[in-house]
């Protein structure tokens, strides 16, 4: 039972355009959502997060939107740069796991930004 799903395995965009990565979840108890970025041969690195009490969080070129009613979140990258080419993982955490810090990850989406 995949509680966090990233249904698009890959995405290709042109440099300077917007990249939109999507993530769906099934568990309404999740209250924190995070995006991680992973380059080849490296570990995932934290990118941006959002609490369920918010619907938007922005950090420079990166914005995460949360739609609780649809159980959907998205990561927008504007403008996209070739250095953004990586695998992006969506992750979720619920109140019950807050004393363990456990995260549930999606399958990942490979973003390619073409020069």
């Amino acid at each position: 039972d995949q509680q966090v799903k990233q249904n698009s395995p890959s995405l290709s965009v042109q440099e300077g355009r917007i990249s939109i990565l999507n993530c769906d979840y099934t568990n309404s108890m999740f209250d924190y959502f995070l995006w991680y970025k992973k380059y080849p041969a490296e570990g995932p690195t934290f990118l941006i997060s959002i609490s369920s009490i918010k619907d938007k969080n922005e950090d420079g070129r990166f914005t995460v939107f949360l739609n609780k009613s649809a159980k959907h979140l998205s990561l927008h990258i504007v403008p996209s740069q070739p250095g953004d080419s990586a695998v992006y993982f969506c992750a979720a955490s619920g109140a019950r796991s807050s004393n363990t810090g456990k995260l549930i990850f999606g399958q990942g989406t490979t973003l390619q930004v073409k020069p």
Partner: protein
Amino acid sequence: NAGVTQTPKFRVLKTGQSMTLLCAQDMNHEYMYWYRQDPGMGLRLIHYSVGEGTTAKGEVPDGYNVSRLKKQNFLLGLESAAPSQTSVYFCASSYLGTDQLAKNIQYFGAGTRLSVL
């Protein structure tokens, strides 16, 4: 500024062999985790620890054992390796604090690529 360090980076095993993967963190984090990453599967939690001397099962614990004898170290053991354990293994850590959002941020090592023949 080491963060989370995993050793070894690569390993090839024969079926039935055993090995231990070492994870060390220098951030004084309470929580530590072991994940495996397989194509199309994302990151799946194997075992985790909420403090020195404690361990718990994650989503895919079968075939693995762990130990957390020191706060900074988290060991993952394979007693009898199987081809199904061919994967990339990641260790992560996070801190115990009052900031809920910061507490959910995990810091990852660079990974160990394991092949079991």
